[in-house]
């Protein structure tokens, strides 16, 4: 199925869990937060939240800024 990850289309397996996506992206150990369709997904729910086709996933981090 297709999702939109940080603005780019991406093909992933049907029923992928957020935790699996995070692992596939090798984000382990980094500080980030995840939003799906403009809704925050707390870390505690990564292992149970399944992605749906056309989900808009945003993975964000802190960067330098004023």
């Amino acid at each position, binding site marked *: 199925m297709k999702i939109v990850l940080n603005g780019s289309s991406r093909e992933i397996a049907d029923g992928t869990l957020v935790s699996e996506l995070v692992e596939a992206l090798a984000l382990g150990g980094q500080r980030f937060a995840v939003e799906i369709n403009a809704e925050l997904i707390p870390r505690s729910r990564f292992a149970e939240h399944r992605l749906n086709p056309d989900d808009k996933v945003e993975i*964000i*981090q*802190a960067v330098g800024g004023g």
Partner: protein
Amino acid sequence: MSNVTQNSDPLIIAGKEYRSRLLVGTGKYKDIDETASAIAASGAEIVTVAVRRTNMGQNPGEPNILDVLTPDRYTILPNTAGCYDAETAIRTCRLARELLDGHNLVKLEVLGDEKTLFPDVIATLKAAEVLVKDGFDVMVYTNDDPIVARELEAIGCIVIMPLAAPIGSGLGIRNPLNIRTIVENAKVPVLVDAGVGTASDAAVAMELGCDGVLMNTAIAAAKHPVLMASAMRKAIEAGREAFLAGRMPAKRFASASSPIEGLFF
């Protein structure tokens, strides 16, 4: 009194005491090393960061800003820079809170226009209301308008941060009397946020009675950012001490400093 700004005159934000009244942004530096050196020289204990998309896999070895400016050493103040409506500002704050393990302190800014980066105060008021109800400690960027500042305080914002001049302009304090009025009205800390260009601007903000100054470009865009960071630290301390000392009244004509009595000619 000699160490008044260092020891007995802390800035208190969300129940935490800070020795430094200078808050700094972390944008626009040449690289992360320059960011860290300038921030160390500034003496700041609160640093702002922005929240952006993770750069997936393109620069795997690049250190994250929070690896260098660690939350155990600095109070991290995530901002909502780049948000032009209340919705995205609220989303950004919620993401930041998750990113920082439940840390509730945020800098709210909702911009109205790309040319001026002036705040959209109507959207700012709306976002502030939602965020305060949601348990955030909101430090809010606003215009130098005493009425709006009063409303933001009434909503429950914990720090009011009027601009001195447009963000990144370095124009200094354009409306000092409004800043003074905001300070006089407020029961919460007032920080000048944005528009400071050089050390004297920071000192003026403090002499007006502001509780602190938040700046980024004035340091990052200086020819020597680390030196300017040090200058800003001193200007903030000098301005604060001058404010506490209470300046002499300005007079139109001279008043001799040496006694008239005992003149021998």
